[in-house]
């Protein structure tokens, strides 16, 4: 039976137009208000697609970043969804539980947003500007290199190594970043230089 009919039917039974109005005043039409059945509108509509690669394991699944805003147009872009790339030969659009949740890595509450500095003995991090941090880092590194750089070994052979400052490189950075890092570390003479390959 149709809602409208049943309602009128009731009103007649109740025998009171009065009832009708008073019921109406009590939000009676609510029952009809929500009859529409519909599915959620596709949330990816009008987003920008960007091809990327999952940063986790070395299967290197193809992923698509869906963003509001387009960095290529110089806009600020916010990632709203990440999904596997069906065109990718390896993962064919599939993703593991980590890859499928990449959006929450990008938007993690514990993402770092500003340089921080901890003074010796302090129990807290304090904000520091990029310039101040980088100048201080350069100073500390040069002073240590100047003080401890090994020019020659006991046999008088030039060895040019710096053993008192070490570096671990990130094996989730791009090859291009890695090449930059490599050039800097090796040219400074750093020998205590490694990456996750051993771990």
């Amino acid at each position, binding site marked *: *039976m*149709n*809602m409208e009919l049943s309602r009128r039917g009731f009103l007649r039974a109740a025998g009171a137009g009065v009832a009708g109005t008073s019921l109406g005043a009590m939000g009676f039409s609510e*029952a009809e208000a*929500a*009859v*529409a*059945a*519909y*599915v*959620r*509108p*596709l*949330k*990816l*509509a*009008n*987003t*920008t*697609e960007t091809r990327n690669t999952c940063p986790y394991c070395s299967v290197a699944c193809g992923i*698509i970043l*869906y963003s509001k805003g387009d960095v290529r147009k110089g806009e600020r872009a916010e990632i709203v*969804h*990440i*999904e*596997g*790339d*069906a*065109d990718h030969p390896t*993962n*064919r*659009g*599939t*993703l*593991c*539980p*980590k*890859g*499928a*949740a990449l*959006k*929450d890595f990008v938007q993690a509450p514990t993402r770092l947003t500003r340089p921080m500095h901890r003074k010796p003995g302090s129990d807290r991090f304090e904000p520091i500007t990029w310039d101040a941090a980088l100048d201080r880092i350069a100073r500390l590194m040069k002073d240590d290199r100047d003080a401890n750089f090994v020019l020659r070994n006991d046999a008088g052979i030039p060895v040019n190594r710096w053993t008192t400052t070490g570096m671990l490189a990130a094996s989730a950075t791009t090859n291009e970043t890695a090449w930059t890092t490599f050039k800097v570390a090796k040219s400074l003479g750093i020998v205590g230089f490694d990456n996750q390959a051993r771990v």
Partner: protein
Amino acid sequence: MSDSPRTAVSNPPVQPMASNLGQGDLIRRSATDELPPPQRQLTPVAKLIDVSKCIGCKACQSACVEWNDTTPAVGENVGAYTNPHDLTENMFTLMRFTEWVNPSTDNLEWLIRKDGCMHCADPGCLKACPAPGAIVQYTNGIVDFIHENCIGCGYCVKGCPFNIPRISKADHRAYKCTLCSDRVAVGQGPACAKACPTQAIVFGTKEDMKRHAEGRIADLKSRGYANAGLYDPPGVGGTHVMYVLHHNDQPHIYAGLPDDPKISAVVQTWKGLTKYVGLAAMGFMAAGSLIHGVFTRPNRVSREDEENAEKLVKTGGAEPPPPAEERA
């Protein structure tokens, strides 16, 4: 030609698209007796979950959360891999892990089943639902909750033979897997099926899925699983989420998957017989009173009664004598 990995046929669209599922595609609508017939018959779809291919990685759970923007809470470890520990209004699908020692081989088998709405052809939730339009069934088989119409009574929980719907404590509405109706509406498969790394979850027309299942079952039988089979329970008219089980002769070993699910007789009685008998009883009562009112004079106090009463009041109860019954 070999059946290549059944992954997403395509990536989801980003251009605005009209939803392909609407009023006109409804075949059932909760608490609605006279639903206009659907304008067209969509091809029935189905999700096939091949338990024998599942590695229990939970990508389906992850993809489900991300697609449906739910927020399952960070719980604790209680000595099991099943996390969260049960379906919730924020977790529409769940990997249930069972360590089962096969008595015939004495080998351990780690049975991992993706739990979630089965999208029954004869949905108990919809039958039980008192709110018009809170639960709908589309002609392609998808059973969907329309939260705007949900009143949070929990009748769907009692109607469901698989214990799937969950009522949110926050907004008092029922939640469950939608089979990603919003994706299906634009020609995409569900998020879980797209994500599933081993394609243990595949999605397509129910016919294709049954055919795909046949191949899988043949492969399993060739590997010694004599009872491998398709779980498409007739008790609920078949489902639009089906399983390939290596031990289809005993579904219950997969974390209590019902062997022969059907809508509970109690629920049937409640939603059926009781309604009509109840209506009859109340009607009879009302009608009876009405007729009596019409055919018998009202039971009025007569002048005689009043005089006798006043007399009694004056005489202070001496007169007249008590009636015969009392003496006897």
